């Protein structure tokens, strides 16, 4: 994976110094909270319900064992012994002290990590496919492109005060594992008819209050013009995105209001101008970056067989591992969704254990998924049993990937000052109601996503089943929706009808899964059945 040189390190070190000064100015009263807030947000520091919360960037979700180990140590040293992995492939700590943050950032800088642009109205941490570099179905590794864009977007002087936050995802396979079209810019690395590599740009997708699927703005941008094209996309947005209403300020609203064709015309005009300026890093720079990702150390001639004699292991193997492009290897997904647990949370000890396992068994690499799980991307099949045993002993052996209990849940009203309802207790109740693993496997792939407010951090619009928590005259209330997807068949979920209490929504969910079981055709997932038979039979079962 990518390693900093002296330039990258100097940037991160300078940022630590700058933020240390800003914190001192706040503590001394030189800066008011109103002045300080946008500055701290650009460094991922929020003031949440109970304390400051620090979000640490994990660029395109990739990190090494040493970095993961430090994340565990920070949880112990500066927080309360745990961290929360997020739907942006980052980690956040819930109990941070303002006067500790410069020291935390300084420690992160020692392992090439930071909290730069993990919040605020700027270009956020760039997300990617958590199976990049390992997936059997990818065209190329998307991460060198993501890293090129990471450097371009870091402290970009023109785009630090955008109308609203800006999220970019980069993938390179037709199987979308990163919700690409639900980003402000979704890029798919593709090959054109001439066999050249380039980038397909989708612009104006997003979730939040007004969910939209990003329209395709350009079929093919040559790889060596990708930065210039992104610059053009951002400049048009920075100049013309709405600033009169925070809820209409995302680029999706601009693209929607002026239309994809007009937006494309403006971008093309700007792009033609920008190409004359020579802003694009040269091929040699791309090659330098790509070399870091080219060979993680995979061996050939490795035993391509797994001993399935332990039935519990076999269940985990079938559910939580995916094919690797190299024979003899597998991609392991560690579920952070135990029955009754808090989705995405891991203790300091669990984080360090995953770090150890990555170093010993996964070529020192880990990934954070947008579904709040952790990936060991390069595990030899011969080591899978050992890895599973160690995970299982640490409470990390849940064999529920993509099943109903593999729930995405935002922190909700237990932690978040924006939330209207609690997401986590609901996720816990659902996973307990469906605790029987045979039943879960019978229900099959069922992506359930819960957000505690319309900001949709829990991706409820894109859930096969989505749940949105709202505040109904001071009482938590939950809206149920069906039919969303964030995969290549991207779709937005439809609301079933009136909302429910916390227990009521769990009951409704059970009724809906019964409709699916009764009506499914051979091979159909819940989503497929819903798409075929529509809302009516579900509605009748839930409200009838």
């Amino acid at each position, binding site marked *: 994976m990518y390693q900093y040189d002296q330039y990258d390190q100097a940037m991160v070190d300078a940022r630590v110094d700058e933020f240390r000064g800003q914190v001192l100015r*706040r*503590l001394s009263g030189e800066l008011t909270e109103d002045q300080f807030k946008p500055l701290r947000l650009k460094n991922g520091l929020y*003031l949440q319900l*109970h304390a400051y919360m620090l979000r640490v960037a994990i660029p395109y979700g990739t990190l090494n064992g040493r970095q993961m180990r430090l994340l565990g140590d920070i949880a112990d040293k500066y927080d309360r012994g745990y961290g929360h992995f997020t739907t942006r492939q980052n980690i956040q700590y*819930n*109990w941070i*002290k303002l006067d500790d943050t410069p020291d935390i950032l300084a420690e992160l800088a020692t392992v090439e990590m930071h909290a730069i642009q993990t919040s605020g109205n700027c270009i956020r941490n760039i997300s990617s496919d958590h199976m990049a570099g390992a997936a059997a179905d990818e065209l190329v590794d998307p991460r060198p492109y993501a890293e090129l864009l990471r450097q371009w977007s870091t402290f970009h002087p023109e785009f630090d005060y955008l109308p609203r936050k800006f999220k970019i995802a980069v993938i390179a396979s037709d199987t979308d594992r990163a919700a690409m079209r639900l980003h402000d810019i979704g890029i798919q690395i593709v090959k054109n008819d001439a066999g050249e590599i380039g980038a397909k740009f989708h612009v104006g997708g997003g979730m939040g209050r007004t969910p939209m699927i990003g329209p395709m703005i350009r079929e093919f941008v040559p790889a060596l013009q990708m930065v210039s094209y992104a610059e053009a996309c951002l400049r048009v947005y920075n100049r013309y995105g709405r600033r009169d209403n925070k809820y209409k300020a995302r680029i999706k609203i601009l693209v929607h209001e002026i239309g994809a064709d007009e937006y494309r015309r403006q971008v093309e005009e700007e792009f033609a101008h920008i190409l004359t300026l020579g802003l694009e890093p040269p091929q040699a720079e791309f090659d330098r970056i790509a070399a870091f990702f080219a060979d993680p150390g995979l061996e050939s001639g490795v035993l391509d067989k797994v001993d399935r004699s332990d039935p519990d292991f076999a269940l985990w193997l079938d559910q939580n591992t995916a094919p690797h492009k190299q024979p003899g290897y597998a991609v392991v997904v560690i579920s952070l969704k135990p029955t009754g647990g808090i989705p995405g949370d891991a203790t300091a000890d669990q984080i360090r254990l995953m770090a150890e396992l990555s170093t010993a068994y996964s070529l020192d690499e880990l990934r954070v998924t947008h579904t709040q799980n952790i990936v060991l991307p390069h595990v030899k099949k011969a080591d899978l049993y050992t890895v599973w045993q160690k995970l299982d002993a640490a409470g990390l052996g849940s064999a529920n990937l993509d099943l109903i209990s593999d729930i995405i849940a935002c922190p909700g*009203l*237990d932690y978040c000052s924006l939330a209207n309802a609690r997401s986590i207790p609901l996720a816990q109740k659902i996973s307990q109601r469906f605790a029987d693993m045979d039943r879960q496997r019978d229900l099959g792939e069922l992506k359930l996503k819960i957000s505690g407010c319309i900001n949709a951090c829990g991706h409820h619009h894109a859930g096969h089943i989505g749940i949105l928590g709202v505040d109904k005259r001071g009482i938590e209330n939950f809206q149920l929706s069906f039919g969303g997807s964030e995969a290549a068949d991207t779709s937005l979920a439809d609301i079933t009808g009136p909302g429910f209490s916390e227990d009521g929504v769990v009951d409704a969910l059970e009724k809906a899964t019964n409709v699916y079981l009764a009506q499914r055709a051979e091979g159909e997932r819940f989503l497929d059945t819903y798409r075929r038979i529509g809302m009516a039979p579900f509605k009748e079962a839930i409200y009838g």
Partner: protein
Amino acid sequence: MKILTGNDLASGDVVWWDGKGWSRDVNDAVDVGDAADAILAAEEAALRVNVSYAIAATRDQHGVRPAHIKDRIRALGPTVRLDLTLKPGDTGAANRVI
């Protein structure tokens, strides 16, 4: 009753105005009547509290109960991590928040 809350500037801890200073325990909160704006202005200016505001609350047999669920959760801590609250032994605490 009307009570005052905010966060400690340096630690971020949730705090409640107890008449003389800022307490971590909501049950120490006092009714400030009409004095809210004056107290908050002085305390903010002196950097003794951050992002402070006044809220409605009642006092019952369990103590001071903020009117809105958000402030009740602030007073307690995450309902899903009762081990991290001010009184970790109080297993009924989460139910009273709702």
